[in-house]
């Protein structure tokens, strides 16, 4: 009996070995761009679960979260992905900024420390990815140090990039500004919050990461 059990285990291991490799896709971007809102929408649309909590205070996501086996079907083709929602990447993290949102000093300092660790965790995940969805806030100027540096680095790593120009539900958003800043990468203007254009994003995901 024990031998059969062991054989069974071995079979599952073999099955895993021959299974087609899934693409690991990281959701990256500066803080408050809407990474977790987008991750929540993708994961909820295709699996019914949620990914993480969202907040208007920056650096709400301070640990990377991974959701395996998200199968996206678009235009008849399906792609199975591991989605990694990452903490926002910033060059400066100051607890005073959190205090302006009404957080007490101790909590602000802890949040700043965790946010800093989060940036490092985001960077660590890069070694393990097959592609990146870069979320940018379309209401903000795209020419920031964070955007320029991370796009340059993703390109050097030869990681396929899909830009999600988020927050197009806001009247002052301008996805065209992002497109002209980084014309070398495919871009989909979306609203992760109300779901506008999200089908177009799924189509692009299936095409680029499938």
């Amino acid at each position: 009996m024990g031998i059969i059990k062991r054989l069974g285990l071995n079979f599952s291991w073999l099955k895993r070995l021959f299974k087609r490799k899934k693409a690991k896709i990281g959701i990256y971007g500066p803080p408050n761009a809407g990474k977790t809102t987008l991750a929540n929408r993708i994961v909820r649309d295709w699996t019914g679960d949620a990914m993480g909590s969202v907040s208007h205070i920056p650096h709400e996501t301070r640990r990377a979260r991974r959701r395996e086996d998200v199968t996206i079907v678009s235009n008849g083709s399906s792609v199975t992905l591991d989605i990694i929602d990452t903490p926002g990447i910033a060059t400066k993290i100051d607890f005073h900024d959190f205090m302006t949102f009404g957080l007490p000093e101790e909590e602000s300092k802890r949040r700043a420390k965790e946010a800093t660790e989060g940036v490092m965790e985001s960077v660590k995940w890069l070694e393990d990815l097959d592609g990146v969805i870069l979320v940018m806030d379309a209401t903000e100027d795209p020419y920031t140090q964070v955007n320029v540096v991370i796009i340059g680095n993703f390109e050097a790593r030869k990681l396929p990039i899909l830009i999600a120009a988020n927050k197009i539900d806001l009247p002052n958003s301008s996805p065209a500004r992002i497109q002209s800043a980084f014309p070398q990468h495919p871009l989909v203007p979306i609203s992760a919050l109300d779901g506008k254009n999200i089908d177009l994003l799924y189509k692009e995901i299936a095409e680029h990461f499938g």
Partner: protein
Amino acid sequence: MPHKCTRCESIFKDGAAIILNGCPKCGWNKFLYVRNDSLVPGPAAKIETAANTGQISPEASNFIREVDEILGIKEEKTELTIKNEPKAENAAKEVGDRIESIRILSPGQYELNLESLLERKEIVMALKEDGTYIVNLPSVFKKKKDH
């Protein structure tokens, strides 16, 4: 002790009430206590000329600045006023050349050097701006993963 305006260097007598609303000459609101004896023109003038004729080459001054940083010596005021322009250039260059991945300015205040974080596998932390560095050895010795 008399007060000296740190911008226009006007000197105000001890207890001068006018400076409470800022320097009446230039509006600046930072003042330095000065000793009475330093008001004597002799030594003050000497310091200035010594500094001006010093003409340290940019490389040398850069080196001195770095050594000062390593030793944790804070830049003196005179240095600041003399080397205003080269300082700004150095600051611009420094961002690219900085070795540390994270600079901890105080608990809860961090500056991240994305270039270093993304491109180097090792993690180096700088404490404040006094030239103290912490190298995370496991990150230095970690083998890069092959894809």
